[in-house]
């Protein structure tokens, strides 16, 4: 049933998406571009969770922790004058490192999926408390004041440049293109991976870990690798977020932030990576819409949405939609 290799259609989608990312800033007003950029950053975070959860069945309840650590790393280094692309890279590395440590404890200790969820949640809560308690001005790293719940503010925006030339701060359009481009590259690489041997083994781990192991595959390092990669991408997303808003604060480690990431992937659907993107866009747009009309209670709707999707649309929007549109017509015209 599942396709064995990448279809040309998918390739065409990437090209179309790339054209859209380049072209949209010419069509839309600057406000929409700024807004879309933060949506895309969250798409990236959702995709990173889907890499672990959808592909390998590793549900982390603390993905916000990798995102937040990446954001803090970017903020601290950029405020201290490190070139922003290097700071962004460091954000990714910190996310990967934290995920790697947690993954090592979990996978090499062979704890169950539930315990992985508990561990990631615990670490997120510890980070929330620790970063929240750095309010005293004496908590500083170089010239970056950690600032407790206020967080770090006035973080420099991402600036790109060629070596030896002064780098130029990306404007809203440039930053949008950078984020969009990065998202497309991650999506493409992630999709290519699912068709590669490594991705296929991950799928078998998800479906039946014991059988995979009995077939002679070491599942531990594979789980660790994909989890660390997932954490790394979340870390980059965090760095991009810090650059987008020029601030980062411990709220990124809150329970509701962690819940959001899970909701995006749950709503969009797991495993295809596109689902994560659609889920993040739909839920963010919904949140924004509910906030704008002001009468509805966003958290109430999001909570009920979460329950409804688990109960009624377990696969999520994209897989369900694909299944319906691919299978139903075939019933009409039996070949």
């Amino acid at each position, binding site marked *: 049933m599942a396709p064995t290799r990448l279809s040309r259609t998918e390739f065409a989608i990437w090209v179309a998406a790339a054209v859209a990312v380049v072209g949209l800033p010419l069509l839309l007003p600057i406000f929409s571009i700024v*807004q879309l950029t933060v949506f895309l950053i969250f798409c990236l975070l959702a995709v990173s969770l889907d890499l672990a959860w959808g592909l390998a069945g590793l549900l982390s309840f603390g993905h916000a922790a990798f995102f937040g650590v990446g954001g803090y790393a970017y903020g601290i280094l950029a405020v201290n004058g490190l070139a922003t692309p290097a700071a962004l890279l460091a954000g990714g590395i910190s996310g990967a490192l934290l995920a790697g440590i947690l993954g090592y404890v979990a996978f090499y200790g062979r704890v169950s999926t539930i315990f992985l969820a508990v561990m990631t949640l615990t670490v997120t809560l510890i980070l929330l408390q620790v970063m929240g308690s750095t309010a005293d001005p004496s908590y500083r790293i170089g010239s970056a004041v950690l600032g407790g719940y206020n967080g770090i503010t*006035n973080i420099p925006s991402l600036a790109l440049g060629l070596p030896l030339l002064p780098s130029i701060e990306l404007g809203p359009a440039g930053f949008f293109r950078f984020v969009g481009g990065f998202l497309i590259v991650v999506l493409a690489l992630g999709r290519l991976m699912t068709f590669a041997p490594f991705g296929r083994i991950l799928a078998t781990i998800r479906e039946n870990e014991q059988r995979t192991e009995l077939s002679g595959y070491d599942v531990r390092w594979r789980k660790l690798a994909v989890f660390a990669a997932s954490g790394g991408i979340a870390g980059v997303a965090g760095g991009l977020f810090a650059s987008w808003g020029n*601030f980062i*604060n411990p709220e990124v480690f809150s329970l509701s932030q962690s819940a959001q990431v899970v909701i995006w992937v749950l709503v969009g659907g797991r495993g295809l990576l*596109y689902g994560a993107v659609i889920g993040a866009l739909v839920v963010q747009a919904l949140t924004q819409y509910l906030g704008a009309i002001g009468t509805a209670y966003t958290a109430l709707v999001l909570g009920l949405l979460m329950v409804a999707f688990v109960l009624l649309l377990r696969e999520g929007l994209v897989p369900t939609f694909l299944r319906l549109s691919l299978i139903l017509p075939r019933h009409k015209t039996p070949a």
Partner: protein
Amino acid sequence: MSILRREVMRYLLGTGMIAAGATLLGKTGVAADEIPVGSILDATGPINIYGLPMIDATRFAIDHINETGGVLGRKLRLIQTDCQSNNQIYAQNAVKLILEDKVAVLMGGITSASREAVRPMVDKYGAVYFYNEQYEGGVCDKLVFCTGVTPAQQLGVLIPWATKKYGKKVYTLAADYNYGHISADWVKVYLKEAGGQLLGEEFIPLDVVNFDSVIQRLQTVKPDVVMSLLVGGNHIAFYRQFAAAGLKGRMAIVSATFGLGNEQVVLRPEEAEGIVVIYPYFQELDNPVNKAWVAAWHKRFGANYPYITDSACTVWNGWHIWAEAVNKARSLESKAVIAALESGIAFDSPEGHITLDPKSHHVVHSAHLAKVNDKHGFDILESFSNIAPVDTMKVCDLIANPNQHKQYTPQF
């Protein structure tokens, strides 16, 4: 099959874009003579304890300005957005109001973290921004006006009074965030001036509800005065457990934060009675402006409206100060409005006569000491006027050095 899938994928991509785009492109078409103004506050989420009364105050202030002739002879059109107690949405809404709605002024923000999320956006995209809430002081930004009371304005009056009235030994309990830390440092400064002695200070995380160890320590060190800088729903537990352990009557509690979240309404009178607080505004203030204001408020929102908080009055002050400055500048252009705001604007507020300090962009307030009574309200003890925000004035001069966009943390 492959054609079909292509259709599907195309459709999929399309819906995603439309879903995202629908809210982005938005709607325009505004009566040309109305002036759009923006407010960012929390109607939902945990912070709405503070947000909802401030939203009421915002509507009340705008309507009042419109009824009394508007600004530049035009009516204000309020665009109120709900930030859902989420700082990222604060940043997003600020961008939306500045770039899309092109508001003449942006007001709002409740926690300092929300203000610090909005400030980079204000500086990046350019707008006059009012932050109308008590906070830790030190913001020094050409585009930003902080109308709330700062620690020096409260503690500079409260600490000398408390040491004289109750005794020189003080123990500080502060919420473990920026306001708590900076205020606790100011307690030390004023305590030293008053010749008092600090027996200890503790910083309590915002999610702590068990104050057992704190109460034991208080019993061990036996201070005369407990200086409370606790905030939020969870910390209400402190006052309750303090009373339950029988410490009420053995040491006094004074606070610069009690009441902001209507603690005196949540707590029973037998638990809260006698706590002394200091704010620029109390509903009970006995002056003609306030009498009329409270009557109008109750007419608008109903006679059993909980308690009109200091935050509500600060919001009212913010809008009126801005409106007065625009009328004085005869222009909505940022530079002209800021120049007018820096020309020494004064306003007869329900709290008393207030002025805007041109150098620091902060407000010179009145301050009143009050004691929680047995009817979920306050009894005014003493009033002070012309209390300057010396903490911020000491470090910030936006006239001499206008290109500043930062928050100073005091060095002690």
